[in-house]
């Protein structure tokens, strides 16, 4: 054991974006922080990979639309290399006939959308933005305990209460009604145009095990709209892919004195009685520290790194009951030329493209997932980043990346056999909208939730480290008894997407966790 090791105040297990954010804040508060990352690259799901010779793509998340501005400026990410090549992109809902619908943050454009719908969209947007602002006010701090009358939590609750009252009676009543409702009904209440309804509801179900008719999906939608509160009027494209976000964060952390070690997979978190003493790496190396912060998801942390045998049964039961089955696959296609999506200009092809013609289409796609099958006609969120970032592919070539739903982690037939047919099915589905795309394909890969689970060490391959449903958010995230970032083991904290407020490249979980650890002092 070297001196450097014994002098570590905090070990952060996992160099995902939240781990890096947490590390940076802790280092700035004077802690000696060591980040241990299993993979070669830092940034976790904010990653870029070269999936074919000369073709790179964002591995997991493909758009930046929620990065918290406070975190970005505190970490001086621009100074450390983060560059946006395009921002405030539109979302275009594709129609087979080519008469697509374009959604901007405050208006909708299409020949096929009625004036009534256009007006309704504006009204709907304004109200959703109000609600998202309220939600945002709860995201930048730890989730309050409801009964433990401490000042910080009371203040949060009071702010939320006042925020709700400030909405006015009508909006407050709407919020109470909408909070748990499904996006399908809300769409039916507001709009007529099928494509418009489908495109909006897609944002309510992305990354989750829910269909538009599942109650809770309005919450999912509001959560996604947090980006609007953070100044994104649409998704943004990062130069070099999402991995550049990870790199900028790592650079920021390094600049603050954080020690970053890659390819240093943690085998287990060490305990003495029920107090954390450090970690053991797969190499057998032991690193001691009084505080360990896990950026891994709660199941990985408590079941694998701590071990269920070392935590109390009730806690273990709660952890194993967290719903975190990933349902999202990722398709990467290397293309020797620009595809031609019907009815889209080149500029339009550079926007966010949605394949989800109707809400029932998404719902049917979800039906399959309920029974452990992949969607026979999946819904998709497509990006062609090379229209903004030429560095990702050889000259004149392109990559297409698609988030594909639904593809359940626990596929009944197993992904080994299903992966190839599903990939073909997804490509066929895209080819319906972009005829001729198949002739352009140089290489392609499909990452299933199982692949994502292995690649990023996420239990279940869930992007959010746990379903973002009302019973798993705020003071119930990751699970009752472990809220406010401290796990039920002395000296162990959680800082990943599995904690409040949740997933997405946002940085708030790491930020809030760091604040909480600093507040509690070194001892944890």
């Amino acid at each position, binding site marked *: 054991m070297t001196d450097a090791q014994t002098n570590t105040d905090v070990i952060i297990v996992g160099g995902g974006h939240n781990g890096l954010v947490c590390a940076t804040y802790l280092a700035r508060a004077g802690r000696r922080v060591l980040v241990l990352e299993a993979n070669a690259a830092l940034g976790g799901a904010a990653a870029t990979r070269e999936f074919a010779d000369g073709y790179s793509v964002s591995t997991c998340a493909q758009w930046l639309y929620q990065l918290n501005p406070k975190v970005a400026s505190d970490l001086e990410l621009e100074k450390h290399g983060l560059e946006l090549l395009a921002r405030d992109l539109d979302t275009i809902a594709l129609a087979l006939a080519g008469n697509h619908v374009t959604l901007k943050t405050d208006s909708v454009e299409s020949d096929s959308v009625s004036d009534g719908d256009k007006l309704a969209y504006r009204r709907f947007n304004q109200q959703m933005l109000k609600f998202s602002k309220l939600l945002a006010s709860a995201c930048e701090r730890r989730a309050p305990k409801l009964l433990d009358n401490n000042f910080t939590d009371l203040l949060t609750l009071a702010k939320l209460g006042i925020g709700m009252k400030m909405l006015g009676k009508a909006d407050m009543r709407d919020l109470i009604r909408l909070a*748990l*409702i499904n996006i399908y009904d809300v769409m039916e209440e507001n709009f007529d145009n099928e494509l418009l309804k489908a495109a909006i509801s897609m944002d309510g179900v992305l990354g989750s095990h829910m269909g538009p008719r599942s109650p809770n999906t309005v919450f999912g939608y509001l959560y996604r709209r947090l980006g609007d509160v953070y100044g994104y009027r649409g998704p943004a494209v990062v130069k070099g892919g999402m991995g550049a976000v990870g790199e900028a964060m790592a650079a920021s952390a390094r600049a603050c004195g954080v020690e970053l070690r890659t390819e240093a997979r943690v085998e287990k978190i060490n305990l003495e009685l029920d107090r954390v003493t450090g970690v053991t790496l797969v190499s057998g190396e032991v690193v001691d520290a009084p505080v360990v912060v896990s950026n891994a998801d709660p199941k990985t942390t408590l079941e694998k790194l701590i071990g269920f045998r070392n935590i109390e049964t009730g806690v273990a039961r709660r952890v194993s009951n967290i719903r975190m089955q990933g349902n999202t696959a990722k398709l990467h296609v290397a293309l020797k030329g620009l595809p031609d999506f019907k009815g889209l200009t080149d500029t339009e092809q550079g926007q966010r493209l949605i394949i989800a013609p109707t809400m029932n289409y998404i719902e049917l796609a979800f039906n399959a997932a309920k029974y452990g099958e992949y969607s026979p006609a999946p819904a998709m969120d497509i990006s062609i980043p090379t229209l903004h970032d030429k560095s990702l592919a050889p000259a004149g070539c392109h990559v297409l990346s698609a988030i594909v739903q639904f593809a359940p982690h626990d596929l009944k037939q197993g992904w080994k056999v299903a992966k190839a047919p599903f990939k073909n099915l997804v490509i066929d589905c895209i080819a319906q909208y972009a005829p001729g795309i198949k002739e352009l394909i140089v290489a392609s890969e499909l990452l299933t939730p199982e692949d994502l689970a292995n690649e990023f060490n996420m239990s279940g391959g869930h992007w959010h480290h746990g379903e973002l449903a*009302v019973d798993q958010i705020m003071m119930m995230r990751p699970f009752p008894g472990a809220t406010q970032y401290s796990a039920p083991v002395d000296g162990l904290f959680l800082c990943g997407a599995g904690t409040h407020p949740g997933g997405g490249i946002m940085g708030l979980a790491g930020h809030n966790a760091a604040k909480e650890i600093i507040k509690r002092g070194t001892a944890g």
Partner: protein
Amino acid sequence: MLRFLALTPADQVTIDKIECNRVTKKYDAIVIGGGHNGLTNAAYLAKAGLEVLVLEKNPYIGGATVSRELHEGWKYSNCSYVCSLLRPEITRDLELPRHGLQVIPYGGSVTFCQNGDYFGDYPDHGRQYREIARHSVRDADAYERYSADVMKQTRLIRPFLMRTPPDPTSLKLRDLKEMRVLAKAFAELGEEGLADTLKFWTMSIGDYLDGYFETDVLKAHLAGSGIIGTALGVYSPGTAYVLLHHYMGDVDGTVGAWGFARGGMGAIADALAAALQSYGGEIKRDAEVGQIIVKDGVTRGVALTNGDELYADIVVSNLDPKRTFLKIMDAKDLPEDIIHKAKNFKIRGSSGKLNIALDGLPTFNGIPKNSPLLRCDMHILDSLERMEKAYDDWKAETWSKDPYVDMLIPTQVDPTMAPPGKHMMTVFVQYAPPKINGGEWTDDDRDAFGNNVIEQIAKYSPDFKDLILHCEVRTPREIEDEVGLTEGNIFMGELTFDQLLFNRPFPGYAQYRGPVPGMYMCGSGTHPGGGVMAAPGANAAREILLDLKRPNTVPAGYPDD
């Protein structure tokens, strides 16, 4: 046959005819709809000394709390069929037993499996344990924890059944006080207990049960209560609460128990009517209201579809919120927001019903003759996946091809409903959509739906089909047309959190008062919802009497020990 102490329907008609001539008479209050809540509401108003008239569109009262002889010698409870939620405070206070009501508890339930086995939920605890243990010892033990956890939630909600929900946006003293009562009840749970409650109220019944049990048939058996009458699947968040709605009643203090009303569910309506009449209230049948009359911004009375007008300063609607605000009120009399809210009110047809006259007692695969399981709720669908697929059919606007069925043969317990040795079977079916592929139900659809259910039951009962003497099939269309429940929704509105407590029927209108002075709501579309509780009717009466500054006649809820 049992003769009730109250007037027989035949006597009633003559009295009503006499009343008919007095069209110019002004009443203190008119209640639109003679369902159990309308009758309860009217009874309490009459008890307070008001002159009350109940108007019922059908030639019979009761709404969905009704028993009818549609096949000679057989009485069908052709809508609601069992009783648990009926508030004991009301039963006792309105002296319903004296007016002929007798509720006989029955216990247990059974789910038939496709493989010929079954899961029997015996009322006897030891036997129930052994039966669960037959499927899984671990589940048998987990059942104790499950029961305790559900009971905790039940105990939380029960005290609020006989209370008016507070308006959380209001700063009125009464609302703040009531919010405090609510907050206190929740606070007593403790931080983790509160989290468990929030989970319970928002989770799907499937996910909730997955947290306790490993045996699919046990989960399917319990999940039935989470979907009955609801347009949600077992994996739809919010269905755990629906289960609670079926557990929070009691028979004689046994929480969660269910019973038969002797003589059918119509006995409840008949007893309520008799109570109403004993306080001087009147009932008029075959009197369909076309419109609530509003003049100068206040309620003045009602106009019947036959053109007659009846006047009262208080008009109470027992109809569901959609019918009330979109059908029998004029848009110009209403604020715009309530029309919008009524249009968006979720009242979905999701159930159908078969009432069957049987020549004898059918046998069921694997169930011994004389087993107590034949006398309780019998379910078909032995896995959550099959239940969820039944819901997928509903989403696709067709009836479930492999339907969930809750059936009972009450004639084994109640001697009044069929000739000796013959039986009546009530079959509740989930799911049946309000529309078939976007179109209205046709008679052919109805028959095909009914046949599909009969074939389903026949798979588990070899002699069932041969015993059928008569069968009434009710789809959402029949329930809507006859009873007047929009889309045939049995709870008068979905029981999801956006439509519960202070959100029922709409946020801002949850205290039984309509948007026009003098106009009130008392149906199951108001708090605490459907299920033959009579609490909405009683709670509404309390609010009306409060507005009239009359002494309250509505009893407070019994505290749980």
